[in-house]
């Protein structure tokens, strides 16, 4: 047990660190196209591996992937893995019980090779199985933001 004199208490910091990351040209296109309810993938011109979200260099064969290698994906896919969450953080460092358990799925979109992780709605946790066919659900008004993809639902 520490005595009080050994503890320096810091109540507030005299500064805040803010960041402003650039996304790169592929990710920028991806985000912009969400406004048009389109999901873009990047298909490696050499080995054909398709990344979603898109990127500019193939991690498999080191080939450069350009804007011309972006392809439209259907928004349909297959659940390859999932988990169910029962609690959330309340922003104060505490857990809070969720009213309804939330499912988070690893989804492989048609014609893509990488997976994306998104909330899965419209199904009870006990009914979820790998191999489930799912489809993207857009939010009402799409603005060209990551949040435009609301969740996925079984087809």
């Amino acid at each position, binding site marked *: 047990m520490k005595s009080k004199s050994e503890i*320096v208490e810091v109540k507030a910091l*005299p500064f805040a*660190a*803010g*960041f*402003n990351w*650039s996304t790169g*040209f592929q990710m920028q296109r991806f985000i912009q196209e969400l406004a048009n309810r389109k999901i873009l993938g990047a298909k490696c011109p050499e080995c054909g591996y398709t990344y979603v979200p898109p990127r500019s260099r193939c991690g498999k064969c080191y080939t450069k992937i350009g804007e011309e290698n972006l392809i439209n994906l259907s928004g349909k896919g297959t659940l390859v893995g999932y988990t169910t969450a029962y609690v959330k953080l309340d922003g104060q460092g505490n857990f809070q019980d969720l009213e309804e358990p939330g499912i988070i799925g690893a989804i492989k979109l048609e014609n893509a090779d990488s997976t994306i992780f998104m909330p899965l709605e419209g199904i009870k946790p006990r009914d979820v199985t790998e191999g489930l066919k799912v489809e993207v659900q857009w939010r009402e008004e799409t603005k060209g933001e990551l949040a435009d993809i609301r969740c996925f639902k079984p087809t």
Partner: protein
Amino acid sequence: MRRNVAIIGCGQTKHSSKRRDVNLAEMVSEAVYNALEDAQVSPRDVDAFVVGNMQGFGGIAQPEQWLGDSIGAPGKSVIRIATGGTTGGSVGQGAYYTVASGLHDVAVAVAWEKHSDSKEAGATTGLLHVGLGNFFHAASYGLSLKNLVATSAVGAAAGVAVYQAMFYMYRSGCSIEHFDMVAAKARRNAAKNKYAHLQWPGCTQEDIAKTEMVVYPFRYGHICPASDGASAIVVAEENLARKKARQPAWFKGLAAYSDEENQLQSENFGGVGVLDPSEQKGCWMSATKAYEMAGIKDPKKEIDIAEVYQPFPSQELIFAERLGLFDEGTAWMALEKGETDIDGRMPLDPSGGVNATNAIGSTALQRILECALQIMGKAEEHQVPRKVHNAVAHGWGGVTSYITVTVLGDSPGR
């Protein structure tokens, strides 16, 4: 028994204030693939990556985790090193260890900084971020956090270097005009280096002297920029090096030392650490050890060029002396005579150095890279006019007391 190791390829990005067109991974991959192309090595032939930037800078805690795919690192050995401002020097030396040990035959060392990913100007956010780690520790000694931030983080490295410069001026008899001369030379040299940031063809001492005083003895024109950019070198064992490069740049000697001359123990704590922050004993120790390993007995005669870590012009003079290239307190006299110009007797920072280009995490690797270019004869417009047999690359950082010294040569030397 360590193996002979050489640099066989160099790659950089163009340095500028803002690279908003690329994300961090894309920017770093530019340097890596430029280096691989220069070395004529396929990414498949690379066994290991040693990578790094300033800890906490750019707001990404583990950048190597997400840029690995973009530089061809999957399935390869990856080590990230972060030693503050010296990071690039440690990254370059790390690649040497990787290959000299016999563990791997080809390693890529890459280092970077992307200041524009921070919201505040220049390196402020990054330094505050690093500051957090160090200052909580300092606060436990009973120092006011606010004062600490004000004296060292906001003053950035300048907050340290001003005291260092004042001590050096007093000790050596040099004046602020000599700092004008160093800064003008850095910008002139940078104008000949297509990758450099602050390029000012024909910049004169008078041009710099006209800029406003920021914190005595530094004028605005004395202070380095905050740059976005990356640098990479390809390091290989002897057989491959001889096959791939017409003139490899051989690692001959290296060392890294620190002493108690520490920001948190000197001026911010009322000078309990050392009395003279321009003493920089860590540099003297590193140089002595690196020259010994390289078989260099008289650096004044045997070293042909030096890339000195000089975000502030006073540091080119201080460290050139600590590297044994000039007698104590005399570097400014050599500067006056033009001996440190590109075509001088002992060219210092022919690339323009950190004073002209400052992507912090990569700056000390750039010193090694620039020495390699001079030895390989690939420095193009800023190539020094005579054959370079031995070159010394220096890095300064940590919490202002950690030094790397790397000696490169045109033969393995043993």
